[in-house]
């Protein structure tokens, strides 16, 4: 079943030039994409490829200027649907500091649940569950600004999670984090996908993060230029380079080894690749 259907969706940015004229910059250009329920979809693209714009189309933050976005059968163009759509599509953004609405973690996580009108004791239960799901329950009463980037982003995920959405969109949520923080956030996303069958849409420009997904969509200048499993995508090296993306070195090495007949698996982790090579030697 499709969770979200984009049909020829187009969204352009209006630019007001200094000489008083207007021009347009491409955001998302005529994109048709089905996001299936329960899948882990990764959307990769270089800066300005339109991936963040596409994310904002998914829960009606932006409305398509042409075409349509249908979320669980509801059109985002109809304002009456937006509340229900946002209940089903949770979103986490790039900068964790700009998503916190309260100065105590549990109150921040509760914000969304308060908005959809859940009373106590369910409210407290959901907050607790969400914090537990991202492994942050011991920080419930603390302030967010003393946490690391990865921890803050996990709190932000808990905030989206507490509403119990069916789809979680991570809009470049790992872009500002250090490698450790990125690992934490990805592990949480993977866990939500595996354990709760949550549909995850991961938007990133780090090719290493592509590996764990079921399906990869590559974007360039607002258009989808490739779709496939991580393996299929990595094989199209020329296409990726044209889109300004690079296959991670470890994966490149693994692929070259495979080509010459070694039984190794694709991995972005240098350590595990090293172990695999050691085992073969």
């Amino acid at each position, binding site marked *: 079943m499709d969770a979200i259907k984009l049909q020829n969706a187009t969204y352009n940015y209006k630019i007001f030039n200094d000489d008083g004229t207007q021009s347009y910059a491409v955001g998302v250009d005529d994109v048709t994409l089905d996001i299936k329920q329960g899948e882990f979809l990764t959307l990769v693209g270089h800066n300005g490829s339109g991936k963040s714009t596409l994310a904002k189309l998914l829960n009606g933050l932006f409305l398509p200027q042409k075409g349509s976005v249908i979320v669980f059968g509801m059109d985002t163009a109809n304002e009456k649907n937006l509340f229900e759509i946002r209940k089903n599509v949770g979103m986490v953004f790039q900068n964790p*500091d700009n998503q916190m*609405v309260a100065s105590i973690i549990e109150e921040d996580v509760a914000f969304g649940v308060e908005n959809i009108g859940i009373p106590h004791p369910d409210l407290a239960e959901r907050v607790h569950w969400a914090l537990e799901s991202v492994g942050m329950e011991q920080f419930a009463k603390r302030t967010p600004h003393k946490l690391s980037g990865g921890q803050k982003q996990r709190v932000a995920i808990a905030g989206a999670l507490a509403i119990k959405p069916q789809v979680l969109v991570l809009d470049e949520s790992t872009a500002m984090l250090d490698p450790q923080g990125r690992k934490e956030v990805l592990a949480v996303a993977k866990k939500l996908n595996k354990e709760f069958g949550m549909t995850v849409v991961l938007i990133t420009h780090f090719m290493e993060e592509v590996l764990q997904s079921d399906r990869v969509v590559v974007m360039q200048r607002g258009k989808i230029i490739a779709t496939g499993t991580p393996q299929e995508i990595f094989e199209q090296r020329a296409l990726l380079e044209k889109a300004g993306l690079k296959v991670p070195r470890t994966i490149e090495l693994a692929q070259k080894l495979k080509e010459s007949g070694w039984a190794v698996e694709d991995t972005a982790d240098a350590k595990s690749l090293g172990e695999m090579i050691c085992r073969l030697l």
Partner: protein
Amino acid sequence: MFRDITFGQYYPVDSFVHRMDARIKLLLAILYLVGIFFVTSFVGFAWLTIFLLTAIFVSKVPLKSVIKSIKGILVLLIFTAILNVFFTQEGNLLWGWWIFNIYDEGLKFAAKMMLRLTYLVMGTSLLTLTTTAVDLTHAIESLLKPLSFIKFPVHELALIMSLTLSFIPSLIEETDRIIRAQKARGADFDTGGLGQRVKAFVPILIPLLVSSFRRAEELAFAMNSRCYEGSTKRTQFRVQKLTWRDAVGSLFQLIFFVAIFLVFAMQTTWANVTWLYF
């Protein structure tokens, strides 16, 4: 540069006063502020001192921290004292030279005024020392709730206050970052006259303003994504519950302040409230 600024002056210990409900504490603080103006005799101030010291003792906040709060109004204190000493022309003349005359009533009046202002600040800082800014925000929202009947945007006001509080640390961090970035490019904040120093802050304020707008937009996206639609049908995560501490604390203060009002009513009528000169 801004690292050591902590917001508010909350003193984190666990005490009877800390555990009292913020709404009750806020109401009691208001009663204290009003009541203090009804104390007219030194005996009254002695009672007030007993009350204040007991409250400070029970709150486990060191007396030094409470007294420190007077620093901010020291200039005002000295200024009012001098004014009162020289401008009160009642009672017996103690000392006079040219146009400066000091009367004994003037001295008494100045002393009472200083005590009043000092106790005013000490009492209110005891509120902020024992209550977090977040709790105060919630208390204000809860106490203003009746105003929502006349379409006063209570919820929105409280949300604005709480958002402001939660963004202060990141804005401080941002300012710090911008200052360092501008210093790295050769900006000079520490030399030159006042005009020049003020001008040097423009390259800090403009990037800060721009980034605040960007933050605000992202925050709006984040809030919308979490189903925010204003105050309609929202529930409240925080449950405010009154405990025996609130009853005991309120009773304790009420005893003192009912006494203050009674004494005031007995010794004076409304017509000659001379101390209320402002």
